[in-house]
């Protein structure tokens, strides 16, 4: 299992459009991937789950991946969240 901490830098947070980008990307990997906010896990492959996290500007979240392609998954999701800007 690998994980990384990351801060949401988008003013609008993870709402529909960024969330759907993220979910589409997550679904490309075989690993189990989740996002963690306030110790609660959210399924990164589910738009409902990612949106129900309600991540807004400045929130710190953890990306956690486990599986055969966990490293690639982690890196790719990390770069998507980092690139989020309004």
């Amino acid at each position: 299992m690998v994980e990384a901490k990351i801060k949401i830098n988008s003013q609008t947070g993870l709402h529909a459009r960024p969330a759907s980008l993220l979910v589409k990307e997550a679904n490309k990997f075989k690993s189990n991937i989740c996002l963690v906010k306030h110790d609660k896990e959210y399924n990164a492959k589910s738009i409902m789950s990612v949106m129900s996290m309600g991540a807004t500007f400045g929130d710190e979240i953890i990306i956690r991946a486990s599986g055969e392609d966990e490293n690639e998954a982690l890196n790719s999701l990390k770069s998507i969240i980092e690139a989020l800007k309004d």
Partner: protein
Amino acid sequence: MLRGIGASSGVAIGIARVIKKTSEVEKVLIKDTQKEIERLEKAIELAKKEIEDLKVSSKENIGEKGAEIFEAHLMILEDVEFIGAIKEKINTEFINAEYAVKLTSDEFAQIFINMDNDYFKERAADIKDIGNRIINILLGKNNNSISSIKESCIIVAHDITPSETAQMNKDLVLGMAANLGGKTSHVAILARTLEIPAVLGLGNITEVVKDGDLLILDGDNGLVLINPSQETISVYKEKQEKILLEKRELLKYKDVEIKNKLGRKVEIAANIGNPFEVDIALKYGAEGIGLFRTEFLYMDKTSMPTENEQFEAYKYVLEKMKDRLVIIRTLDIGGDKNLPYLNLEKEMNPFLGLRAIRLCLNKRDIFKTQLRALLRAGLYGNLGIMFPMISSLEELKEAKNILKEVERELEAEGVEYSKDYKVGIMIETPSSAIISDILAKEVDFFSIGTNDLIQYTLAVDRMNQNVSYLYNPNHPAILRLIKTVIDNAHKEGIWVGMCGEMAADVNMLNTLLEFGIDELSVSPPMILKLKKSSGQAS
């Protein structure tokens, strides 16, 4: 007779079609969970197909913006957590698919309702919409009664959702009546765009009216008449006929050009208060947007609109208007128009208090967010930024400084923004009119806001019935001020528009043309009336 809110004008006479949306779902215990899951999966596939169709028809009827919502609906239908939760309920609780869908969509909707961000809150409705769609398919009911209409009728519903207005056959829907909704609700705006009469906020019309009742919808007066007498019907038929003739007549004037006394063409632009209204404006031949009020972004909310939310709204209008000027007014709020989340102090004299540009200069973060969104959106069209309620040169300079500051910040962050935009001010305080020669050196245009200018100049609160008789647009003081403003502007080589009610007053048109006004901005349906009354030929 029922009284509601006249949300879209016109008269409709027709048979009621009552839309009952929420299907009753009963809990049934089942044995064969595998079979139940297969039923569910089939229903989901059908739902996806329905939504794909909706997406296409809504793109045709309302445009890209309207279709976006269905993209999200499709993703929900493919969501592992959502669908997973439904299947799990079937498997572990041995319940029918309908009930499992209902429980799950209620659960998920509740999560979103509890969130403290408006955007996320509103997603609850999308989830319920999806849930109902699957349930109706499972029950073998035709989900979209509105889209399944085969004969012309008046739609009667509890609430009419955007997805429903998108899919209804415009030629068959004579009018719309609903328990919920108001003048600014989404359906009202769409009804006006499609020119379908609508009466909303009726409370309980779905309980009072039955399928097949004959209805008259009076969109101008917000009335619904149920099974009226022949006599009433013929009165309304006449009225309807008249409206139709007027409309047809007016369209002849779409290409009329109005000229002022200097022989210059006067731009006839539209006032809008919501991005969707740009479509109405274009339909009536608006030559620009003379006033785009941005308050809708801030009202009826619990928190400030984000920069991106604003950016999208501005961009939408700018793109639609292409190279025509779109004048967007910065936040005009405060005084009587309060925002609960701003925690403004109660004032003794709200109209003389912290409002409009004064509020923006006081709460710079709000102002700067709006300016950032405006400058970024400026890349997509021909942008004019307009400051309201300017009363001194210092105020204008300060507002312009902040605008420059925002430019520098965007530059430093490497964010793309428009460098080619116009800056103007509303002339709505007597002081700004009197020093318009000085202010004209600082801006690209003026727009005279007559409602406030008259109220401030004549010291008359026109909402106060005891003094409203003094509210007189023809008062020499007002005419002198307007003339002064136009002359001063022309001396500095800038143009002057007018966006208050006087601009739409056909009796004032000749005076304004005589003064040399360069632009008149009015509500979209007034555009053609104005062109007609000018008596000038195309």
